C-alpha cells in the first residue's frame, strides 16, 4: 500500500485509515482477511456475545433510497468460536484487529473482556449501542451516561487491550455520553452505530418487510448525522475517534477525517461498491491528496472545534 495512506491509532500502525467495522464481513477469519488484503488498515470482528446467537429470522435486510435497514439480531458464534477465528486471522496477517463484544450488563462485559484478554486480538470494542436491546419504551443501553461510565470503567479495570466504546446516534445527549465514556477510561470512541431503528412496509402483503419489523439504518443516508456526531464528540473529548456511518467514497472519508475522526469505518459501502471498496477508496484518497496538495492523510486539516 502507499505510505501516504499510513496512519497510527492507539499505537498501532495502520496501512490505511480505512477500517472494516463490526458486523460486516466479520464472521470468519477469511472475511476479515480479504478485507485487509483489499486495503482495510484495520478490521473488526462481528460483535461477539457469551453464547452463540442465530439472530433474527429473515428478512433481516431491506433496502431503501439512501441505505439499508438491518435486523441481523447479533448473530455470532459466541465468544469462544469467535476468538478462534481471530486467532486464525492473526496467524496469517499483521493487520490490527478489533474484537467487538456485546452484552447487557457489566458482569457479562467483564466475562467477555477476560476471554478477549487471552486471545490474539489487538483491541477491544464495547458495542454499547445495538438497537436490539431497547426496552419497551425504546431506551438504548448507551443512552445513559451513568451506565456507559460504569461499563467502560469496569472493563478498563481488567482489560489488557485498549478499549474502544462504540456509541449510538440515537441519544439525546451524545456529547455527554462521549464524555462519560472518556471519563470511564475509554482509549477511543467509535461512532456511529446504526440510526433509528426504522421500518419499511410491503404494501401488497400489508406487512413490515423485516420480520423483526424494525431495523437499524446504515448507508449514505447516515453520513450527515455521523459527521455531526463525530464532530461534536471530537470537540469535547481528547481521545481518538473511529468515525463511520454512510461513508462510501474518498471524499466522504476526507469529510469524516475533517470532522474529527482519526480513522474511518466503511460498512454498508461493502455492499454498494463491492468488497474492493477499500482499494477503491484508498485510490480516491490518494487522488484527493494529489489534487489538493496534501502529502499524507495525517496532514489533512480538521474543522475548528465547536465552541462548547
Amino acid at each position, binding site marked *: 500500500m502507499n505510505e501516504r495512506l499510513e496512519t497510527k491509532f492507539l499505537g498501532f500502525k495502520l496501512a490505511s485509515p480505512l477500517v472494516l467495522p463490526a458486523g460486516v464481513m466479520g*464472521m470468519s477469519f477469511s472475511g476479515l482477511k480479504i478485507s485487509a488484503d483489499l486495503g482495510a488498515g484495520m478490521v473488526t470482528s462481528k460483535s461477539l456475545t457469551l453464547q452463540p446467537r442465530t439472530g433474527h429470522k429473515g428478512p433481516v435486510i431491506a433496502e431503501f433510497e439512501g441505505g*439499508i435497514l438491518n435486523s441481523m439480531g447479533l448473530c455470532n458464534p459466541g465468544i469462544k468460536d469467535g476468538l478462534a477465528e481471530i486467532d486464525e486471522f492473526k496467524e496469517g496477517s499483521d493487520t490490527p484487529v478489533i474484537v467487538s463484544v456485546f452484552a447487557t450488563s457489566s458482569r457479562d462485559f467483564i466475562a467477555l473482556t477476560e476471554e478477549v484478554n487471552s486471545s490474539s486480538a489487538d483491541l477491544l470494542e464495547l458495542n454499547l449501542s445495538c438497537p436490539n436491546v431497547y426496552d419497551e419504551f425504546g431506551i438504548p443501553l448507551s443512552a445513559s451516561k451513568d451506565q456507559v461510565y460504569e461499563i467502560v470503567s469496569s472493563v478498563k479495570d481488567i482489560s489488557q487491550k485498549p478499549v474502544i466504546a462504540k456509541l449510538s446516534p440515537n441519544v439525546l445527549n451524545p456529547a455527554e455520553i462521549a464524555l462519560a465514556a472518556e471519563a470511564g477510561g475509554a482509549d477511543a470512541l467509535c461512532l456511529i452505530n446504526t440510526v433509528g431503528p426504522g421500518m419499511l412496509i410491503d404494501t401488497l402483503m400489508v406487512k413490515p418487510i423485516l420480520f423483526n419489523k424494525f431495523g437499524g439504518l446504515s448507508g449514505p443516508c447516515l453520513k450527515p448525522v455521523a459527521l455531526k456526531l463525530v464532530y461534536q464528540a471530537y470537540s469535547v473529548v481528547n481521545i481518538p475517534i473511529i468515525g463511520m456511518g454512510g461513508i462510501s467514497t474518498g471524499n466522504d472519508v476526507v469529510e469524516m477525517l475533517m470532522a474529527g475522526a482519526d480513522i474511518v469505518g466503511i460498512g454498508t459501502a461493502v*455492499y454498494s461498491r463491492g*468488497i474492493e471498496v477499500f482499494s477503491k477508496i484508498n485510490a480516491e484518497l490518494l487522488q484527493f491528496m494529489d489534487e489538493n496538495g496534501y502529502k499524507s492523510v495525517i496532514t489533512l486539516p480538521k474543522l475548528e472545534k465547536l465552541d462548547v
Partner: protein
Amino acid sequence: MKNRSTLRIAEIRKENFDINTYRFNFDLKAKPGQFIMLSDLRGGEKPFSISDCTEDHFCITVKRVGEFTKRLFSCSPGDLLSIRGPYGSSFFISAGKVLLVGGGYGTPPLYFLAKHLLKNGAEVHVVNGARKAEELVFCEKFQKLGINYENTSECGRLKNSGTSIDLVEQAFRNNSYDFIYAAGPEMMMKNLQDKLGKLPYEFLLERYMKCGVGLCGNCTVDPLGIRLCVEGPVLSKALVEQLTEFGNYHREASGKRIYFMKTDKGKK
C-alpha cells in the same frame, strides 16, 4: 436488492412428493446459476436457485426440508411472495461438449443452464442423481430439450446403479468433455472433483445466507473470504481448489462451523 418485488405465484407444479416448482410471471433477467432471496414475510428469507427464466416468467424448484419450505408447500397460486435478486455469479456458457451433473434440488438450476448452453451450440449431456428414483426431478424436461437421451435416461437406471458418480464415470468412458458443471449435495461434488483431473469445471455451492448482498459475511468460504452470495454461488475450478472448507465444513446461522460427516454423501 433495489429489485425487491412482491410477486404472485402464477403456478405450482409438483415435481415429486417433496419438491415443487413455483412459477412467477415476471421478467427477472437472471442468468443460469443465479439465485433469489425468497420470503413470505412470516419469518425466514431463503436462497433458491433459478430453475428457468425467460422474458415472461421464471421458476424456482424447492425441496421441503424445514419450517420455511413447509410453509411454501402450503401456498397456492395467487399468493404473494417477496423476492429479491437475481443475485450472485452465473455459469460460464460453453460452446463445446459439456457434462452437467445434478443431485437432488441441484438439478433444476442445471436445466436453466442447459437451455443457455444449447442456444450457444454446446453439446449437452446430463447426469441426474437422487437417492431414490422417485426423488428424481426434471427428467422429462431434460429429455424434451432433445439432448443426449442416453444420459438423461440414466435417471431411470439409477434404481440399479449406485450413485451419480457411477454414471459420471460411465459417461467419461464414452465421451471426452470440454467442461463440467455440477450442482447438488456438497459431498457429491467433492467426490466428483476427485474424478475430474485437469478438466475445467464450475460448481454451484451453498452456504447459509442471510443478507444475500455481501454484507453479513455468513456465506464467506475459507480461506479466500469470498462471499458465495456475491462472488458465488457458482465458483470455477481455480477457486474451488483453493477452498480448504470445501467438503469439510460450512457455517450455520450463528456462524459456528459445522463439519460434514465423511459418510454423509447426500447432505451438504
